[in-house]
């Protein structure tokens, strides 16, 4: 069972590495807002 516990935590760590990063969405919308203003 210890192996399953380590494996499940490892799966989470890998998921964080491959998870999408969309921080630039905010920047884009702010730029649009500024242009509209």
């Amino acid at each position, binding site marked *: *069972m*210890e192996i*399953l*516990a380590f494996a*499940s*935590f490892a799966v*989470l760590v890998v*998921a*964080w590495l491959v*998870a*999408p990063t*969309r921080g630039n969405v905010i920047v884009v919308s702010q730029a649009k807002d500024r242009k509209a203003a």
Partner: protein
Amino acid sequence: MPNTISAGDTAWLLASAALVMLMTPALGFFYGGLVRRKNVLATIMHSFFILALISVQWVLWGYTLAFGPDHGGLIGGLDWLALRGVGQDPGPYAPTVPHEAYMVFQMMFAVITPALITGAFAERKRFKAFVIFTLLWATFVYDPVAHWVWGGGWLGQLGALDFAGGTVVHITSGVSALVAALVLGRRVGFGREAMDPHDATMTVLGASLLWFGWFGFNAGSAITAGGLAANAFVVTNTAAAMGALTWMTVSWLHKGAPSVLGAAAGAVAGLVAITPASGYVDVSASILIGLGAGVFCYTAIQLTKRLKVDDALDVFGVHGVGGAWGALATGIFATVAINSGAKDGLLYGNPGQLGIQAIAVAASIVYSAVMTFVILKVIDVFVGLRVPESEEVLGLDASQHREAAYQI
């Protein structure tokens, strides 16, 4: 009778009762942050009012119905009405603490359980209907099921394991929440307008306080201040952490961002799932239980949303599904290496325990659903469950309480 009272056990149990007491106002903040600002005070009032209401109900008749001398495995007798005979000497359930200490610890469980349901009917239930519902539900649902499992009733006799309330607290409240959401119907504007949380910081604060109080909920359920309490403390913290990490990760992969509210909800889901198991499983099992809670509860909430069920604050997904998972996981991962007074589960060569856990889950689901439906229908006839549409649009803070949460 020789005095067998342990100062350590008594101190731990009273401190645990205070920790569990804090969970109900914490739940008010958790829910309060999730509703719109016009309903925050009414939502917090649900939890705060229940703390007062059930405190009195429990000492008058709740405790004796749940823990009084058994009648047919179904209900406790009235021997301890108004706590007659419940005093400073130990009672039958805990030989090393005053009976009153055990009673007040159990009171805090009876308080928080109906408060959990309030998240399902938030933003639309009439206050008077809520008061009557809570009193009837505590008497006719919580007290009997607590007796079945912990008070010498038929599920306890069958061998069902529920260390701190997977069936008694979380399945009963979660299933009742789903029934309440269906009977009351959707909020005005549901699915057409945004109903975003008005203060996510309040919700995270509430979740943090719930996590803190849960140490009393689970580790206090050992009743003794020893190794079993220490193990329950460790597995509780671990499952909460795994629930938070897993929910956040699943929502990140699903919706593209690591949700703060998701992490808070996931921690609660992990706490719910470990509750019945916390006195029977080791730390590796708690990691798997927390992982399962994050996945199953998140999935259940997506499903209820797809079915357009307005369980406003996701009570069924977190408490109903998390409680059922925890109860079944107890039948899988329980081991006498942790608790010599319990039984092994499926993984340790006793598959029958999983069957017993399934019976306990099914019984608590069916009983809670039927009784909650009946109680709600009766109240609807005599009082009316929902506020009028105009009052719902105005908000419950103004229409029900004539107060405002914020002056800014």
